[in-house]
């Protein structure tokens, strides 16, 4: 019975996958209809350099003290850590926020539209003590800053 159940689940899964495959090739899943590509590879990367490579095409960044990261020195609750990033770099087009000690370090990217200031604030999960890194793209170059945050209770369930 177990083998049959597994066979049914497998078949069900493969039919579903097949349907999507057909739909995609038939052009029904046209790019315009689907969300603008969410950088899956970058978000799944397990190491900071790989995430940056996938996201920006390079992992080389220049340390800059013009990028300010506001984060608590000690996060009592790793599930909700408030982070604010502000870049004083001229022409900052985007800010990437990474948590070096998380299983998948890339947490968020912010892209500045016309008139936007190089400023973003949010709250993130930190699995354990480690660096919070901000990478800014400005004038075609990449700059970064990092700050350590101690985590007493991990953000992914302890």
């Amino acid at each position: 019975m177990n083998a049959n159940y597994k066979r049914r689940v497998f078949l069900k899964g493969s039919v579903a996958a097949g349907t999507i495959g057909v739909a995609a090739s038939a052009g029904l899943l046209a790019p315009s209809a689907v969300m603008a590509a969410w950088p899956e590879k970058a978000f799944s990367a397990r190491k900071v350099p790989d995430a940056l490579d996938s996201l920006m095409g390079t992992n080389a960044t220049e340390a800059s003290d013009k990028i300010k990261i506001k984060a608590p020195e000690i996060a009592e609750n790793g599930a909700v850590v408030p982070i604010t990033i502000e870049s004083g770099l001229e022409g900052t087009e985007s800010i990437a926020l990474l948590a070096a000690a998380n299983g998948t370090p890339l947490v968020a990217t912010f892209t500045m539209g016309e008139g936007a200031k190089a400023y973003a604030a949010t709250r993130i999960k930190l699995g354990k003590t480690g660096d919070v890194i901000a990478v800014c793209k400005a004038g075609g170059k990449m700059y970064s800053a990092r700050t350590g945050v101690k985590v007493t209770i991990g953000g992914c369930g302890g």
Partner: protein
Amino acid sequence: MAATKLKARFKKDVVTVKALMNHPMETGLRKIKETGKLVPAHFINEITCTANGKEVLTANWSGGVSKNPYLAFKYAGAKGDEISLTWKDNKGGTETVTSKVK
């Protein structure tokens, strides 16, 4: 699920927009103790904000952003600007809220 709270204030030559969204932001790694089953990933992955119809901020997120996510950003705007925020999640869920800059 309560609607996203969106507010925008013009102060010191800049508009600060603050949003508080209602979303479980599941990473897909959390296990339910009793059953040992993984809670599937369910998180906001894309956000688009416009001011008077023009895009001012876009963001891509992972499940690493906290539950009931908070977002704040700033842009060069004015009182009376029409602000709009749209979020989309990995399951096709979406919400759009609007507000006026005070």
